[in-house]
Structure formats: structure tokens, C-alpha cells
């Protein structure tokens, strides 16, 4: 894995999200806890809703357009809805956010 530094954890509000533009498209970073972040596709498989604009709760996000709920651990849609979003390895180290460059189609920028 090649970890790329994309910012500081405090750049994302608690229970909020921010977007990173990557070669594989927009990836949303969801801050589910004080020191807990998940990365997943920003695009809802239903009708393309921007998931980074959804409400983040527990380790899930709800799409702002039609309320599909995705588990950020697996990317799987919950309940009766069927669909999945891609998830990406991300780490928090000393407050810095590191995303796996290989997974988002990019070698380390360093």
C-alpha cells in the first residue's frame, strides 16, 4: 500500500464528510467518531446522490436524495435496498488522514 496524506482529521466535522477528487472519481471521507474515518465512493448507486452530503450516523451514511443507508465498513446498502459502494483503506495517524494510493488509482505523490 502507498499511503497519501490528504489532510487533517479536524478538517472534517465530527459526523460530517468531505470529498477528495481522485483518478477513480470523487471519494468521500466520513468522520464517524473523534478519531474514526471511513472512505467510500461519493456516488450513490441508486441515482447518483452525493453521499458526502448525507447524514452520518454510527458507521453508516444516509444518501441525501432518497435515504438509502450504506454501511461504511462494507459499502453495502442496508435494509431492503440493494447496492454497494466501493470503500477505500484510510488511516488516521497523529491526526493526519492517509488514504491508500493504490486503491484510488494513484501512486504516492511523494
Amino acid at each position, binding site marked *: 500500500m502507498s499511503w497519501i496524506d490528504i489532510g487533517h482529521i479536524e478538517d472534517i466535522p465530527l459526523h460530517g464528510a*468531505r470529498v477528495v*477528487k481522485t483518478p477513480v472519481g470523487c471519494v468521500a471521507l466520513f468522520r464517524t467518531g473523534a478519531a*474514526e*474515518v471511513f472512505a467510500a465512493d461519493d456516488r450513490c448507486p441508486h441515482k447518483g446522490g*452525493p453521499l458526502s452530503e448525507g447524514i452520518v450516523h*454510527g458507521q453508516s451514511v444516509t444518501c441525501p436524495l432518497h435515504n438509502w443507508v450504506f454501511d461504511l465498513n462494507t459499502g453495502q446498502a442496508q435494509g431492503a435496498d440493494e447496492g454497494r459502494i466501493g*470503500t477505500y483503506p484510510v488511516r488516521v495517524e497523529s491526526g493526519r488522514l492517509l488514504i491508500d494510493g493504490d486503491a484510488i488509482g494513484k501512486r504516492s505523490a511523494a
Partner: protein
Amino acid sequence: MTQKLVIIGAGMASGRVIEHLLDADPSAYDITLFNAEPRGNYNRIMLSPVLSGEKTYEEIVTHSDAWYAEHGVTCRFGEHVVKIDPEMKVVEGENGHVPYDKLVIATGSAPFIIPVPGHDLPGVISYRDLDDTNAMIEAAAKGGKAVVIGGGLLGLEAAAGLKERGMDVTVLHLMGHLMERQLDEAAGYLLRKDLEVRGITVKTQAATKAILGEDRARAVLLESGETLGADLVVMAVGIRPETRLATDAHLDVARGIEVNAQMQTSAPDIYAVGECVEFDGHLFGLVAPLYDQAKVLADSLLGQPNAFVVKELATKLKVTGCDLFSAGDFAESETREDIVFRDPARGIYKRLVIEDDRLIGAVMYGDTADGSWFFGLIKDGTDIEDMRETLIFGPAFQGGASADPLSAVAALPPEAEICGCNGVCKSQITSAIESGATDLGAIRATTKASASCGTCTGLVEQLLQVTLGDDFQMPQAQPVCGCTDLSHEDVRRLIKSQELKSQAAVWQELGWTTPNGCHVCRPAVNYYLLADWPLEYRDDPQSRFVNERKHANIQKDGTFSVVPRMWGGITTPDELRAIADAADKYDVPTVKVTGGQRIDLLGVRGEDLPAMWADLNRAGLVSGHAYSKGLRTVKTCVGTDHCRFGTQDSTGLGIKLEKHLWGSWTPHKLKLAVSGCPRNCAEATCKDIGVVCVDSGYEIHVGGAAGMEIKGTELLCKVATEEEAIEVISAMTQIYRENARYLDRIYKWLARVGLDWVKEQIVDDTENRRALAERFELSQSVYRKDPWAEHAQDSATRAQYAPLANLTLEAAE
């Protein structure tokens, strides 16, 4: 031959090393021990009981002068080592050189001091050693105010100790909840509550800007502008490994002195141990791993093979009465699952984090009896699949107890307490049932169980079912969502009656089953809290739907629309020019006149929003809240100014109303209109609140709607003056804000409570009307402002509109 061993630092880690060495082979080394503190080793972690007065210094000494003498350790206490020369194998103390065969650096760590102005004033103390502790005890003897900066383990122990010694203590913490590295929000909330009960003031999200005072610290200034008087300031914001000697001697140093698994540094014959080291990227701040290191180091020094491994850690807080426990990992792990248990009546919260059928983290507050059992499961990586259902109930429950709630209730002993508020036990309820109380209402009436906070309602109902069998019909109350069994009305009532003022308080006290709600309950609870506690609770943007968070309506292609306010539908050529300029500058594809008498700029890119708002602000234009569950527009007709039928200044009243009401959050959207005569050109009788002017005054109508459902308004009352009209409308808005379910428009809410009730409250009871209007005004003192200006001017908020990073740019280079 006996070798010379020099140890720098007589702390908890090196103390253990010496014990192991002497145990194994007392003749192996001739030991010289330096310590900057003018004393030998004591149990540093017991400084907190010394501070609070529960122990004396003498009781926490681990190695006395006599002990060192008896074991032939040469002590150079009160002497700093100033230099290490790895070439010559000599250390330089303040009072002279000592050569070594082997050297151990055990310098611990130094408190981190935030370099704000005034940090070096007398009266600012850190919390690390006995001298700091004595300085605090001395300061506390004079009484007065103490401000503790840092709400972590050390800061809270200092705060509790100082409070115990009679000071007036405030804790400042930068993050949203206390001890955020060890606790989650819910446990942090309970801890805060316990500290507040003992009289300690806690301020979270409080950043220190400066410490004020001429000759000594007198006050602490916060970034928010608030000033707190302080006779004593304790800085406990963290520690930094004490690595200076190693750095100067050119050893490998990252954040700490780098060591391998044998505790060797990069230089031959130099070892390091304790908080000053870094191993495999880890730093250490608790004694358990240091003791492991000490054992390994002693073995290394004696030529025995051994290797240090990093283990899971558990944290406890040594504040009497604050029972908390935290262990393992909550962060950065995929495919995990939470188990949450709350007992609001007893202030208990437990959360377990599970991954791949193994327990990887546990946080507990209020009842930590099972902490060590959970910690054992974490350390051993035990497969918990078989006990998953009952895991959270601890070891006592393992081995067959059923997870079915009904049989769990059936299994409760007769004296088990069901209703914590009123102290009602199971047998009282079952005997009430047997003597004829066969529904919840009857149980409440006869035993008072579930009649106060209501959180035991579920248990009482289960008891009814267990006792009556099929004769009891479980009522189908409509819960807010899957996170709770409570209805919206219950939640609103309990937020008021239990004075719940934060989301964490709601989740905990009302027994939410999820860590922080879901997309259904969070916006509702956020709204209820801000409506009921306008001064205490701060609106949480992360609990709002995107439009309200971004203050713009998201369009189907992901662009946004921008609708500036035009008070009462009145505009000026300058405003129109500013709107036209903004439309040009930001390539707005569509400019539309809305049904709410203003102009909509559609198709604005999200990233352009703050800049566009700043431009519009400059022309005096503010957000029209065309996106909010709050005041939208006040539509007006031209009234007496121009119309030959006009009876009153409908435009003027509309503008006044809009300026009075704008910015307020309501359960659902709120649209008003004012028509100058019953011809009703402003269509006031299909608005949430509409005013129809007549010769003798103003008719106030409520409960209209024109959407999927069309409803005409009903007449609330008629008043003679504009002032009265504004007061009635404020009171109407406020009573709706305080009582309606989230997402009920006025007409839906009226269908539940009845127009007559509202009339009683705000038409007949003029005192209540005034009180409601005053509460509305209080809330407006917080919310009557332009969110666009706030977002455009605050650089941190502004940044939220742009991507965090753009990794496609460099790829193109």
C-alpha cells in the same frame, strides 16, 4: 568483572529495571542513578491521591534513600545530566563526569506547554512531579479559582483534586467531549455530568488564546473572547518524550528515542526505557507497557534473550465516584459492529466493539465491574461468537441465559427495580396487575411506575405481557425511528422535563439503541434541542439535511440554487444589479422569479457558494432561507401605498414580520403572507400564517397550505394594531416551535392539538402570549442572523465547501 551501569532518570520505568537487575544478579552491575528531581523514585501515578489529600508523599515513595544505600546504588539526585558522549562512553552531570559500560536513558517525558502568551507567568503550573503537586496544594490553600487546561486523564485528576481542596474549578477542553482519546461521546457525556455534579465547570470546544496577568496569572482568555478569572492555571494538555540528551548525542530519535525490541537505541551500549522511547511507531503514556519494557531491558542487560511486544491498554480514571473504563481500539478498523447498552436511571453506559467475532474495544461508564473481563477477552482475542447476544451483560450472564426480552423480564427476581425514578420493584407491579391494573395507564396510576421519565415503559409493558399473556395487547406507539421506542411527543416532553441539553444527553438518558441516532431521529432531536434550549444548545450542522447544512437547495445535478431575501417582496435597483452581477460572474444558467416574490439563481456550483454569498452580502442581500425548515417568505400585496382598496400598510407589516421572524428554525417550513384587504392578492389564506387587513385591524389566519394538499386557513383572532399582530404571530410561531413534531406543518399539528387549544393559549391568555413571544425573542437573539455571512466569512466553514484534496491534479502533470 562488575560493569558500570549509568541510569539517567529515577522514574517508574528505571525503578523496575533496577529491581529486576538486583533480583537476578546483584553483582552484575555497579549502578549510578541520576535524577533531575531532588529525590528517588516514587509512584508518580499516585500524585493524584496526594493532590486530593487521600495520601501523603511518604506513602507513595517506592524506593527510599535507605533502600538505595542498602543495595549499593550510587545516587546523584537533584543533578541533571547535561550531555552524553557515546564515543568516550561518558555522561556529563552538572557536578561531574561518570564513565559507563552500559547506559540507560529513562528520562520520561515533559508536559507539553501550549505556547500562548502568558504561559510562563507565575501561577501557571503543569502536572508532572511532586513539586508541581506541592505547588498546587499550596495555591489551593489560598482558595480562589483554578482553571485546568486539558480534559484528559491528568487534567481531570488535577481538577478533581483541586476541587477537593476547596477551589472553584473550571476545566477547558479543546475537543467536543472529555477524554476523547479513551472515551466515546456517550461516556464523555456521563463523565462530564458526574464532574458537574461535584461542582466542576466543564467547557468543551474551548481553545485558550492567552493567559492574562502582569506579575502572575490572573485570568484565561478563550478564542471565543470569554475571560475566566484564575488564581491558578494548570496546563495538562499532553506530554512530549524527553529526548533532548539523545538528540544531542545523535542517537536515532523520531517522536521518542527509537529502540528495538531489546530496548537498544541506535548507539552501542545505550538503552532507553519508559515514556522517552518510541518503539515501532508507538509512544507510551501508561505504566503497564513500561513495566514490560523494564523486564525486557533487565534481561538485555544480563544477556538474556527477550523481546518487547506492544499490548492492548486499558485506562481508568482515578477520580473517586467517576467510574470509567476504556480499552482497545475504536478507530480505524473495518467490518466492525457495536453493541450498546444504556441504563439511564443508573447512569450506565457500555459499548463493545466487535470485529471478526473478536472483541477489540470496550468503553464503560458507571459500572465498570466487568472491565477486566472484557479487557481479558480483548487481549486474548477470544472468539466471542457464541456469547455475542449476552456478551454485554458480562461474565455473570454467560452460559445459557436467554436473550429474549420477555424471558429476561420473567427471570427477574421480585425485588428487581423496574422504575428507577419512583423506586418501584417488579413485585409491586405484578401485584398491581393481579389486582386489576391491566394497562399502562392503570399501572402508572396505581404504582407510579413509568410515570416519570418513562424510560421503563417498555419493561412495564413486558411485565404486563408476561403476567397477562394474550390478554394484553402491546400498544403500537409510533416510535420516532428504529433507534428508540419513544414517540416524538415523548422525546419532546422528556427533553423539557429532564432538561436534556445535548444530543449525547438524549441518547443516554432516553436509552437510544444506536451510538448517535440515524438520519430520521438526528434532525428531529437537533431541532427539539435548539428549540427548547436556544442558549445552551448549539445547532449541529451534521444533524441537518444537506440543504440546511449548506444553506442552499441542492439540485438534481448536484449544483445549488441561491435565493436572496427580498423583505416583503420589495427590492431596489441596486439589489437587482448586485443579483445580475452575481449571475454574470458565476455563470448562473437560470434566473427565475419564484412564487415567494423573490429571485432564484439556479445552477450555482457548490464551490462558488461562499464567494457568491460574500458578493451578495456586500449589496446588503442576505439568505432567503429558501431551503430551510424555518421562515421562508412573507408575501405581501401593495396595500395602502398604492392600491385603491387597501385598508392597511400590508407591505410594511410584511416587511416588519419578515425582519422579526427571519432566521428562526421551525418544525417544518413556515410561509406567511399579508394581504391589504379581503381581496387577498397575497393569497394569505393558504399560508401557514396569513394576515388579512380590514378597516378595523388585522385578521390573523393559521394553518393553510398549498402543496400536495390544499388547505384554507382558519381564523385565529382579530387584533387592532400592528404591534398586537406581531406579538400574536410571534407567539403562534413559538407555540408551534415548542410543541409540534418535527416535519409537521402548522395545519398537521393543529389537527393533533386542535385550534381551540391554541386559541386558549395565545388569544385568551394574554400573559402566556407575551411569555411565548419573549421566548421567541430569546431564541431569535441567537438565530436572527445571516448564515451566508457566517459561512462566507469564517475560513474554516468556507473550506468545507471545497474538496479536501484534489489528487487528480498532480496526475495530469
